[in-house]
C-alpha cells in the first residue's frame, strides 16, 4: 500500500464531500466547501484523476512507460469504471423500486429521474448500457468512463509534447463552449449532466501539470508566487456563493457559455475558481499532515481506493436519502446517516485493500 500522500488525501477529501453533498438537505451539507464557491468537489476529483494518470504512466524520474502499456492500462481502467457504473445503476434502481414497494409509495419512483426507467424499461435498459440514461447524482461515473476512454489520445500526444496535449484539449474545450457540444441523453431529451467535451480539459490539465511538476521546479515556484491570487479568487468565490450573485444566462452575450457559471459545461468561471482553490489550498496538506494523524490516514485510504469508495458512497448516499425521507430528517438522523456513511466508506476502503492483500495463492472459496 502507498503511504498517505497529498493526492490520495485530497481525493479522499473530495469523496467525503461528494458523499455529504449527495444527501441533499442534510445538516452537514452547509459545512462542505462546495457551498462556498463556484466550483466544487467534482472539479477536484476529475483534476486528481488526471494527475493520477500522470503518476501511473510515468516513472518517478518522469520517464514514461512504454506507450502500449499505458494504452492497455487506461483501457483496463475504463472497463473497470464502466462495470462499476452498471453495478451502481442497477443497485440504485433496485433500491428505489424496493423502497417504493415496501413503503407502498409511488412517489419514490420519481426519485432522481428513475421514473423514466420504470415507465419505459425497454428503451431505458439500452440507455443504461449506453450510459445515455443516467440517474441524478449517478452521472459522474459515465463522465469518468468517457474521460479515461479518451485519455490515451492525450497521453500519447503528451509523449511528444505536453503543450500540444494541453492545446488540443483546450481547443476542444473552447469549441464545446462556443458550439455547445455535448453527448445526448436517451431515452428522454436533453444532454449529459457532465459534458465530457468540456470536462476533459481538467483531466488533461491534471496530467500535464503532473508532468511539468516532475520535470522542473518552475511550476512549484510559480504556484507559490501565485498563492495570493488563489486566495483572492477563493474569497471572491465565497462572496459570490454567499450572496448568490451570478450571471443571468439569458442576459449574457453570445457565446453564452463563456460567461455563465454552469457545472454541466465546466464554464471558464468555474475553471478559474478551481485553479484559485488549487493554488490556495494545495500547500495546506504539508502543514496539516503531521497534525491530523488518523484523519489524514483515513482520507488517504479512501483516496487510494477511490472507485470502490465512490461507488459505495453513491449507494450509501441513496440509502441515506431514503432514511431521511422516511424518518423526516432532523439533526439526529443526519448525524446517523453521515456517521454510518463515513464508517461505511472507511470499511469499503479497508475491505478492498484486505482483499487485494489476500488475493495471493490461496484457492478461492
Amino acid at each position, binding site marked *: 500500500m502507498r503511504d498517505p500522500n497529498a493526492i490520495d488525501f485530497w481525493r479522499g477529501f473530495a469523496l467525503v464531500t461528494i458523499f455529504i453533498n449527495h444527501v*441533499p438537505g442534510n445538516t452537514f451539507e452547509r459545512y462542505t466547501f462546495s457551498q462556498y464557491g463556484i466550483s466544487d468537489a467534482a472539479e477536484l476529483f476529475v483534476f486528481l484523476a488526471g494527475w493520477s494518470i500522470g503518476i501511473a504512466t510515468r516513472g518517478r524520474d518522469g520517464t514514461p512507460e512504454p506507450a502500449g502499456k499505458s494504452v492497455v492500462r487506461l483501457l483496463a481502467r475504463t472497463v473497470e469504471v464502466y462495470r462499476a457504473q452498471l453495478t451502481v445503476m442497477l443497485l440504485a434502481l433496485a433500491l428505489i423500486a424496493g423502497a417504493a414497494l415496501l413503503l*407502498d409509495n409511488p412517489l419514490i419512483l*420519481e426519485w432522481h429521474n428513475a421514473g*423514466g426507467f420504470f*415507465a419505459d424499461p425497454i428503451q431505458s435498459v439500452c440507455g443504461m448500457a449506453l450510459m445515455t440514461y443516467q440517474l441524478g447524482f449517478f452521472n459522474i461515473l459515465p463522465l469518468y468512463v468517457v474521460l479515461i476512454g479518451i485519455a490515451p489520445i492525450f497521453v500519447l500526444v503528451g509523449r511528444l509534447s505536453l503543450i500540444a496535449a494541453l492545446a488540443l484539449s483546450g481547443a476542444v474545450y473552447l469549441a464545446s463552449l462556443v458550439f455547445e457540444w455535448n453527448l445526448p441523453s436517451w431515452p428522454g431529451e436533453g444532454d449529459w449532466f457532465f459534458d465530457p467535451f468540456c470536462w476533459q480539459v481538467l483531466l488533461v490539465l491534471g496530467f500535464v501539470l503532473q508532468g511539468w511538476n516532475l520535470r522542473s521546479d518552475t511550476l512549484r515556484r510559480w504556484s507559490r508566487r501565485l498563492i495570493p491570487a488563489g486566495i483572492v479568487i477563493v474569497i471572491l468565490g465565497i462572496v459570490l456563493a454567499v450572496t448568490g450573485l*451570478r450571471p443571468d444566462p439569458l442576459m449574457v452575450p453570445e457565446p453564452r457559455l463563456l460567461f*455563465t457559471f454552469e457545472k454541466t459545461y465546466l464554464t471558464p468561471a468555474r475553471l478559474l475558481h478551481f485553479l484559485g482553490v488549487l493554488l490556495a489550498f494545495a500547500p495546506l496538506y504539508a502543514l496539516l499532515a503531521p497534525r491530523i494523524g488518523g484523519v489524514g490516514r483515513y482520507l488517504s485510504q479512501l483516496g487510494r481506493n477511490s472507485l470502490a469508495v465512490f461507488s459505495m458512497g453513491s449507494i450509501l448516499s441513496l440509502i441515506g436519502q431514503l432514511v431521511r425521507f422516511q424518518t423526516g430528517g432532523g439533526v439526529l438522523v443526519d448525524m446517523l446517516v453521515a456517521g454510518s456513511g463515513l464508517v461505511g466508506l472507511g470499511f469499503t476502503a479497508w475491505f478492498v485493500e484486505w482483499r487485494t492483500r489476500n488475493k495471493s495463492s490461496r484457492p478461492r472459496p
Partner: protein
Amino acid sequence: MRRVRASGFRWALAALILAGPAAAAEQPADTGDQPSLSQECRVPGAQLYTMAKLSAVRSALSENRPLKILAIGGSAAPGASASYPAKLEAALEQALPKTDVTIDHRGLPGEIASGASERLRTMVAEAEPDLVVWQVGTHDAIARVDADAFASALSEAVAWIRSHGIDVVLVDPIYTASMAADVDYNRIVEAVRTVAGQQQVPLVRRYEALRYLSSRSDKGEGHMLGRQFRLNDLGLRCMAEHVALTIATSLMRTEAEPAPKIAPALTEPQRAPG
C-alpha cells in the same frame, strides 16, 4: 396575415367554448365534470386548477408563431418515454387548432432549494420557450427541504422566468395515500400553491385532482402493485389533459382582458382560417 392570425385564435376560442362551458367561466365551477376531459380523468375545475394570464402564449398565438413549450420534470406515463410530452402536444393542438405546438421535455433532478434552480435557468436559456410547464416540488419533498426555503427559491425562479417574458404553469406534486398525513409533504404542496398565487401563474393542482380521483369508487382495472400504483398510473395518464385544460382555460382569461396593443387585431372581421 394579421387577420388570419387573429381569426385563428378566435377559432381556438370558439372551439374551447364549445368544448367546455365550465372552462369558460371566470371561476371554475365547484360541481360538474369537465366535458373536455376524458372519462377517467374528470375532475371538477375547482379541484383541478387555478387560472392566471398567459401573455407570452397569447402573443405567440396571435402572431401565428409555433408555440414553444419547455415541459420540466416528471416521468412519462407507462408505455413509452415520449408519452407525456406527446400527449400534451396532442391535447394542446386539439384545444388550440391552427397552432403548431413544440414541446421540449426535460427531467430536472435535484432540489429547487439548492442546485436545481440553476440548472433550470440553463434549460430555459437553451430552449428559449414561450411557456414553461413545470412539475415541481417532488424532489424537494423527498429531500425534506424546509418548505419556506423551497417557497422562496421557487418564487425567485418563477419571477426570473417571467422577467424574461416567458409564461409559467406550475404543476404541484402527486397525491398518494402514504403521504396524505405527512405534514412536510403537505407544506411543500401548499408552498407551490402559494407561489403560484403570489407570482400570478396558473397552477395545475395535481395533488387535489388525484385525491379527487382516488376518492371515486374505483371498480375496474386493478394494479398488480396495489391501489396507490394504479392511482399513480392514472395520474400520469391524465396529466397531459389536465395541463392542456389549465392552459386553455387560462388563455380564455387572458383573452377576456386583452392587452391594449393587441386589442385592435381582435376587432377585425373574422375570416375563414387558411
